[in-house]
C-alpha cells in the first residue's frame, strides 16, 4: 500500500489559507494576500498531481481494478453505532480525477484573478472565499461518506453564495446570490431526505460499503415499495434532487444564469468547471447503487439530463449576455454528462457512458473554464457583458481570440480536440441504450456549435464597433492561464480514460465509433456554418429569423418564463399566501387569544363590580343567599 496520508493536506491547506486571509486578511497587503492564496493552491496542485501519479501508476490493482483507498478517516460525529459522520479522504479514480480538475482550474483561476481583480476593494476577501471554495470542493470530492459529501455540498453552496454576492453593494448581485443559495438549498433538502432514507435502509453512510456491488447495502432496501417504486429508488431520486440543484438542471437551473453576477473568474471556477459538476460527480459516486438498486432513478437522471441539455441549448441561442450564454451552455453540457451516466451500465464496455461522462466532465472543465476566463478578458477589455456592444475584437485581443477559438472548437466537438472524443463516447453510449435520447443529443450538439460560434463571431468578427477606449489585451497573469487551459482543452482528449476512470475500476477497450462520430462532427460543422452565415458579418438574418419564430423566440429569450414562475411561487405563494397569513394568524388569532383572555378577565372584573355595591344590605343579601344556597347544595343536591 502506498502512503497517501498526506492527501489530507490537500483540502486542509486552503482551509488554513481561508482562516488566515479571513481573519487577518485586512491587515495584509493586497498583493501579499493574493499571492498567499495562489501559493497555497500551487502547493496543493503539485500535491494533487503527485497523488494522481501515485494512484494511477503506482498503486496496487486487484483483479486489474483500481481500488478505493481510504487515505485518511476520522469519526467526526457519532450518531449511532453504525451511523456516523466521518471526515476523511477517499481516493478512487473519479476523486483523483476531480482533484486534478479542481486544483488545475482553481490554480489557473487564482493566477488569473491576481490580474483580473487587481485594485478591487475586498481583494483579500475574494481570495479568502476562493480558498474556502477550494477547500469545500476538495472536501466534497474526497468524501468518504455521503454525509461528508453533504457537509461540503453545503459549504460549496455557501462559498458560491459569498462569491456571487462578492459585489455586495450591487443589488442584482445580492439577489442573485440569495437566489442561488435558496434554490440549491431547496434541492439540498431533497438530498438530505435522500440521505435519511438511504441511511434508514442501509444503516450506513460509508461510500465503500454503499457502493460495493456485492455488499449488503445494495442488496437491502430495494424490497420495500412505496408508491410503486422501491424505497431505494425513492432515496436515490431524492439524492439526485440535490444533484439537480447543484448542477443547475431543469427545473432548478434558474440560479445559474443569475450567478453570473459574480466576478467572472468565479464563474469560471465554480459555475462552470467544478461546483456545478458536483451533481454529476454525486451520481458517479453512487453509481453502483443507481444501477443495481434504483435503475428507475437512473432513468430519471438520463431524462433530466437530456431535457436540460436541449432546453438550455435553445435558450443559449437567444441570449445576448455572453456570460449567460456560457451559463446556459454549461447547463447543457452538464445535461450531457448526466445523460451519459443515465444510459450507462456497470462494468466493462457496459460502463461506457460512465467513462464518457467523466471524460466529458474533465474536458468540459478545461474548455468551459477557458471560455469563461476568455469572456472575462473580453469583459475586462470592453466593460460590457453584452455581445451587442462587441465586435471585431480579434485585432485587439489576439491571445484571447485564439484561445477562445480553441475552446469553441472543442465544445463544438471538432476533432482532434478533447470535446470531440468525450462527446463521441457519450453519443455512442446513448445510441446503445436509448435512441430518443441519442437523437436529442445530436440536436444539442448542433445547437451547441451554433450558439458558441454565434458568440465567437459576434465578438471577434461581426460589426466594427467603436469603443470609448481602445480595448487592450489582458496582462500576462490573465493570458497565461488562458494558454494553459487552451492546451489542456486541446490535449486532454488524449488521456486514456477508458483505462483510468471506469465504472468498476477496470480498463476496457473502446474506440471511436465512426458511425456516430462522423455525423456528429458534421452536425457540429453545420452549426458553425450557420453561425458563420448569420454572424460573420453584420446581417439581418438573426432578426428575420427571430421575427419568423416570434413566439418561440420570445419564449426562449425569456428563458421560457422560468424566472417569472419562480417569482410567482416565492412572492405570491410563499410570501403572500403562506407567510403573511401565518404572521397574521399569529398576531391576531394566537396572540389575540391570549389578549382576549386578558380582556375577558378585565371585563368580567368590571361587570361583577356591582356585587361590591357599597350597600350593606346587598352584602347581607349575598351573604344570606350564599348560605342558603350552600345549604341547599350540600343537603339536597350534592350529598
Amino acid at each position, binding site marked *: 500500500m502506498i502512503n497517501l496520508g498526506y492527501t489530507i493536506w490537500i483540502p486542509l491547506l486552503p482551509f488554513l489559507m481561508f482562516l488566515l486571509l479571513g481573519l487577518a486578511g485586512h491587515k495584509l497587503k493586497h498583493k501579499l494576500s493574493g499571492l498567499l492564496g495562489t501559493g497555497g493552491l500551487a502547493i496543493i496542485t503539485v500535491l494533487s498531481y503527485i497523488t494522481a501519479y501515485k494512484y494511477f501508476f503506482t498503486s496496487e490493482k486487484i483483479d486489474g481494478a483500481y481500488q478505493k483507498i481510504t487515505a485518511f478517516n476520522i469519526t467526526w460525529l457519532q450518531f449511532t453505532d453504525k451511523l456516523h459522520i466521518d471526515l476523511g479522504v477517499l481516493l478512487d479514480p473519479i476523486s483523483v480525477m476531480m482533484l486534478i480538475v479542481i486544483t488545475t482550474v482553481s490554480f489557473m483561476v487564482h493566477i488569473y484573478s491576481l490580474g483580473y481583480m487587481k485594485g478591487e476593494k475586498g481583494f483579500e476577501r475574494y481570495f479568502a472565499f476562493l480558498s474556502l471554495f477550494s477547500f469545500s470542493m476538495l472536501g466534497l470530492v474526497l468524501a468518504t461518506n455521503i454525509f461528508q459529501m453533504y457537509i461540503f455540498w453545503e459549504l460549496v453552496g455557501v462559498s458560491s453564495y459569498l462569491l456571487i454576492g462578492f459585489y455586495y453593494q450591487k443589488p442584482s448581485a445580492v439577489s442573485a446570490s440569495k437566489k442561488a443559495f435558496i434554490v440549491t438549498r431547496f434541492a439540498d433538502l431533497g438530498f438530505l431526505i435522500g440521505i435519511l432514507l438511504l441511511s434508514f435502509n442501509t444503516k450506513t453512510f460509508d461510500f465503500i460499503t454503499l457502493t460495493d456491488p456485492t455488499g449488503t447495502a445494495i442488496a437491502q432496501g430495494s424490497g420495500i415499495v412505496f408508491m410503486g417504486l422501491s424505497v431505494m429508488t425513492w432515496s436515490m431520486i431524492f439524492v439526485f434532487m440535490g444533484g439537480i440543484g447543484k448542477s443547475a438542471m431543469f427545473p432548478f437551473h434558474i440560479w445559474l444564469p443569475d450567478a453570473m453576477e459574480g466576478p467572472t473568474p468565479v464563474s469560471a471556477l465554480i459555475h462552470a468547471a467544478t461546483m456545478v459538476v458536483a451533481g454529476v460527480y454525486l451520481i458517479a459516486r453512487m453509481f453502483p447503487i443507481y444501477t443495481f438498486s434504483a435503475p428507475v432513478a437512473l432513468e430519471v437522471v438520463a431524462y433530466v439530463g437530456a431535457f436540460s441539455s436541449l432546453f438550455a441549448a435553445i435558450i443559449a441561442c437567444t441570449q445576448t449576455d455572453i456570460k449567460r450564454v456560457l451559463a446556459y451552455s454549461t447547463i447543457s453540457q452538464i445535461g450531457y454528462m448526466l445523460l451519459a451516466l443515465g444510459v450507462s451500465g456497470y462494468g466493462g464496455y457496459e460502463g461506457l457512458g460512465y467513462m464518457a461522462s467523466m471524460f466529458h466532465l474533465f474536458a468540459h472543465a478545461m474548455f468551459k473554464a477557458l471560455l469563461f476566463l476568455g469572456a472575462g478578458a473580453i469583459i475586462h477589455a470592453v466593460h460590457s457583458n453584452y455581445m451587442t456592444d462587441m465586435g471585431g475584437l480579434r485585432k485587439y485581443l489576439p491571445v484571447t481570440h485564439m484561445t477562445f477559438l480553441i475552446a469553441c472548437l472543442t465544445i463544438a466537438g471538432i476533432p482532434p480536440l478533447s470535446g470531440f472524443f468525450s462527446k463521441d463516447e457519450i453519443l455512442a453510449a446513448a445510441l446503445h441504450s436509448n435512441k430518443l435520447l441519442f437523437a436529442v443529443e445530436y440536436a444539442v450538439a448542433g445547437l451547441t456549435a451554433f450558439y458558441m460560434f454565434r458568440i465567437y463571431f459576434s465578438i471577434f468578427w461581426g460589426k466594427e464597433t467603436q469603443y470609448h477606449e481602445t480595448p487592450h489585451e489582458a496582462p500576462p497573469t490573465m493570458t497565461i492561464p488562458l494558454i494553459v487551459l487552451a492546451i489542456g482543452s486541446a490535449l486532454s482528449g488524449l488521456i486514456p480514460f477508458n483505462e483510468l476512470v471506469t465504472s468498476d475500476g477496470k480498463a476496457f477497450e473502446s474506440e471511436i465509433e465512426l458511425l456516430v462520430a462522423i455525423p456528429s462532427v458534421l452536425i457540429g460543422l453545420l452549426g458553425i456554418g450557420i453561425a458563420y452565415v448569420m454572424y460573420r458579418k453584420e446581417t439581418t438574418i438573426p432578426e428575420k429569423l427571430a421575427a419568423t419564430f416570434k413566439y418561440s423566440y420570445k419564449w426562449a429569450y425569456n428563458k421560457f418564463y422560468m424566472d417569472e414562475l419562480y417569482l410567482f411561487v416565492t412572492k405570491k405563494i410563499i410570501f403572500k399566501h403562506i407567510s403573511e397569513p401565518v404572521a397574521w394568524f399569529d398576531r391576531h388569532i394566537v396572540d389575540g387569544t391570549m389578549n382576549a383572555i386578558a380582556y375577558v378577565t378585565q371585563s368580567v372584573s368590571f361587570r361583577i*363590580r356591582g356585587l*361590591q*355595591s*357599597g*350597600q*350593606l*344590605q346587598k352584602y*347581607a*343579601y349575598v351573604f*344570606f343567599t350564599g348560605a342558603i344556597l350552600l345549604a341547599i347544595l350540600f343537603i339536597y343536591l350534592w350529598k
Partner: protein
Amino acid sequence: MNAGIPIQYFLILAAIMFFTGIYGFLTRRNLITILMSVELILNSVNINFLAFNRYLYPHKLDGMFFSLFIIAVAAAEAAVAISIIINIYRRFTTINVEDVDEMKY
C-alpha cells in the same frame, strides 16, 4: 308546663322569627331598625337553645347558658353598634343605610 306542645312548634316558631329578622335586616333602611332585626335573630336562636335544652337534654344547662351569654353579648354588641350609629349620624346626618355607601366597587 309544655305538655302537648311538640318541640317542633318551638323550632318552627324560632325559624319564623329568625327569618323574619333576616328579612328585616335585608329590607329596613334605618340602621337602628337593622339593629333591631339583629335582636330578633338572636332572640330566635335563644328560643331554639332553650327548647332543645328543655325538651331533649334537660339534665344539663348548656342551652340555657348559651342563651344567657348570647343576651350578654347582644347587649355589648348593641352598645357598640349604637355608638357607631350615632357617629354615622354625625358624619352623614342620616342613618339611612342606603346612604352609607361612600365606598364601593
